[in-house]
């Protein structure tokens, strides 16, 4: 809670004192309990969170290995695997030829036989060339073999829109993988999420799809000492309430959590207290937390970057309508990306994605029966 204000403050302020003052003021204004900072707050980028998690899991278990394009000599296409080749050698960090189908199949085969691969895709868009292995070979095998063959594999890589990379590099796959039984699908937001959930994913005996976000790699988050402990993991399937509120529930995952938090701050100025849920896990979806929150606020807005039809928001809506229908005071609003392949031109790209916080704020206000126009002004 203080972290959210801190993040907002860090983003814009130049002077420390004015930052601290504004922080204190905003905390008092929003009625939150004023807590003093823990003095040992560490700053951790998402990239370092991933790198340290991989490093520690590879040190702890010699069966874990990393495979993918450019993960070794190049230090990782996004430098996530930096230093791992030097530390663990070419047996544990494998650079591959350009064949997603090949190295995914190989990783699955290695997992069949008892190793624990971490397969990196340069982006999940390229994983479509290997999706047969992810679904038919990894997700279904434990079931279809009658429990004889387990597949302790992790598929990770950037997912969703980046900046100016057009349609074949910008698709969000959360909904597609989230619909497949046999897979666990994770989409973290903060460094704490990335670190704890990657460790949990590597330790998990089931196949896990770990959806990262390219634009988040460089983002810094404060983390406690507990997060930096080598045994720190987060449970898969539990969402996190990033910010408590009582008027409207906003669910989001990955980068959109940041926007939802900013939207919550905007709404707070209008006296609307929004509860922001960071889903963390797409499959299993933490329906209990979402429903409990809706039963408290009576209103729901789901936020995602992906396409609207059959999206994550659609599943959340269905779940809430099934379980908490009587509690809803307003129709559920889904904020999603536009139903088009991602355009390249910067202005078009901006329009194709949920627009910063304005869309979220507008949807939340609509849920709270404030007068707002239905669609964005052109």
């Amino acid at each position, binding site marked *: 809670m203080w972290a959210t204000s801190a993040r907002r403050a860090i983003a814009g302020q130049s002077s420390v004192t004015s930052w601290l003052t504004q922080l204190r003021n905003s905390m008092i204004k929003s009625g939150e309990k004023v807590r003093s900072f823990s003095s040992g707050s560490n700053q951790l980028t998402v990239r370092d969170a991933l790198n340290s998690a991989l490093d520690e899991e590879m040190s702890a278990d010699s069966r874990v290995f990393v495979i993918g394009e450019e993960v070794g000599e190049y230090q990782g296409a996004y430098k996530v695997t930096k230093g791992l080749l030097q530390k663990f050698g070419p*047996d544990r960090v*494998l650079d*591959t*030829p350009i*064949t997603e*189908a*090949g*190295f*995914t*199949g*190989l*990783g*699955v*085969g*290695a*997992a*069949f*036989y*008892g*190793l624990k*691969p971490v397969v990196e895709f340069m982006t999940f868009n390229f994983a479509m060339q290997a999706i*047969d*292995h992810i679904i*038919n*070979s990894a997700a279904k*095998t*434990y*079931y*279809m*073999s*009658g*429990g*004889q*063959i*387990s597949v302790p594999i992790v598929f990770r890589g950037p997912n969703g829109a980046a900046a100016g990379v057009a349609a074949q590099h910008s698709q969000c796959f959360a909904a597609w993988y989230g619909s497949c*039984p*046999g897979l*666990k699908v994770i989409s973290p937001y903060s460094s704490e999420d990335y670190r704890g959930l990657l460790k949990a994913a590597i330790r*998990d*005996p*089931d196949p896990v799809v770990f959806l990262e976000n390219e634009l988040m790699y460089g983002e810094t988050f404060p983390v406690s000492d507990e997060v930096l402990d080598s045994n720190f993991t987060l449970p898969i*399937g539990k969402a996190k309430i990033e910010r408590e509120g009582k008027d409207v529930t906003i669910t989001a995952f990955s980068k959109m959590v940041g926007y939802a938090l900013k939207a919550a701050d905007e709404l707070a100025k209008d006296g609307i207290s929004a509860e922001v849920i960071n889903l963390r896990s797409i499959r*299993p979806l933490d*329906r209990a937390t979402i429903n409990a929150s809706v039963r408290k606020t009576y209103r729901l807005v789901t936020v995602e970057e992906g396409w609207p039809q059959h999206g994550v928001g659609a599943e959340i809506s269905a779940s809430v309508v099934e379980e908490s229908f009587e509690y809803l005071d307003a129709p559920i609003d889904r904020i999603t990306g536009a139903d088009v392949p991602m355009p390249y031109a910067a202005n078009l790209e901006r329009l194709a994605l949920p627009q910063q916080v304005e869309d979220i704020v507008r949807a939340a206000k609509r849920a709270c029966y404030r007068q707002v126009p239905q669609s964005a002004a052109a």
Partner: protein
Amino acid sequence: MALIRRAGRSLSMLKRSSLFHGKQKKQRQQPIVSPSLPNLTPHLPSSLIRLQINTTYSAIPRGISSCSFRSSYIPNRLLTSEAQPKLPDEGIDDTQFLDFPGVKNTAFTCDLKFVSEKSEEVPCYRVLSELGEPVDGAKLPQMADALALRIYENMITLQVMDYLFYEAQRQGRFSFYMTCSGEEAAIVASAAALSNEDVIFAQYREQGALMWRGFDLQEFAHQCYSNSADYGKGRQMPIHYGSKKHNFVTISSPIATQLSHAVGAAYSLKMDRKDACAVTYFGDGATSEGDFHAAMNFAAVMEAPVLFICRNNGWAISTPITDQYRSDGVATKSRAYGMRSICVDGNDALAVYSAVKSARSMAISESRPILIEVLTYRVSHHSTSDDSTKYRSGEELSHWKVMRDPVVRFRRWLEGNGWWNRQKDTELQSHSRKKIIAAMMNAESMKKPPLSDLFTDVYDSIPTNLKEQESYVREAVAKNPNLYPSDVPL
């Protein structure tokens, strides 16, 4: 003069290039040949070598056109370190020093010539004739009578099982079956050459390999009937066998995916330094899949100990070889990946055994993949869902079925050695038949897998949503017991 400058540039290119023999950086690296050099190029005519030795630095021995100069023996000429006082000014052409990173052993040419689409002939290895007699000059593999008889008995049992299960499907006892008629020798003899530690990744027509490993008739029947004793817990179609204890990975329907899996498993075996390899079976059709290319390439790059055994039986459902690929066979494809291969007569059990045994030891000791093309013929229909008379001639089918039966061929060899006779054959056939029918009756009478097996093994531990769904189903069953099938336990 321009030539000398070019020669100088070539020299420095040579120092940097990988063609240069010594990896260590010597101070003076003038390429001079000493007359005391041993004959490192015995394949070249001696006149050439003499010319080579007598010449001071000259990239091209006189009398040989620069167009066809082979760069491969340049390193031999650079082993001394004597300085050359002066560079010669003739016969030097820097175009011969090919140091592009993409190719190691080749030379420039000034002939505009394309590489032919026809590959070098790959001979087909065979030791027994069609009549089961050793071919002239053949060196038969060491095979004791016990092993030979075990192979034969497996092949017969396999044939009988295939026949009876096919009929059972026709009678509606289970929904699907695939026989391996015509390919028994290819499958059983290759499996016999492996050790039980080798992990098998099969396609779907290799029940003979699983049978060899010790999967018994009753277990086959349970899988096909999808009953409660099925190791797959009733989740797979018939013939999608799998058995962890027999090191046989569960059959997966998508074609050729098992090839990359096998490479992955081979990588694990290599990392564990086990005396075992991964073995993957696939058909001619699978060589068209992207996974074939990826797996072959990857296995070669990673030096993984994996055997790629291709049952080239001429047909992929209704697609004949001529529509499947334009190379001449499958064994020839491995060269493109830098992989060793062999083409074997798949209807000659002894040849298959010998080739696979040899390939296996190469794969493990040298940590390399090997492609084994086993030529055979698919006498069976593709599956019970197929009627192959629609796309191939009856004469072709009956020729292979009657005249080229691999089991009969092996039997002739056994009889020739005095290890087998007609009477034993009849006994074996009827004994197998009785056992299989008993297994089928037993499997048929067993209950189907219980309701709980619907929800387990999706994940390592059952998630809450599935527990809920299971309890909903049980409530519904409790309310309407008459609507629930009686042979499915709760």
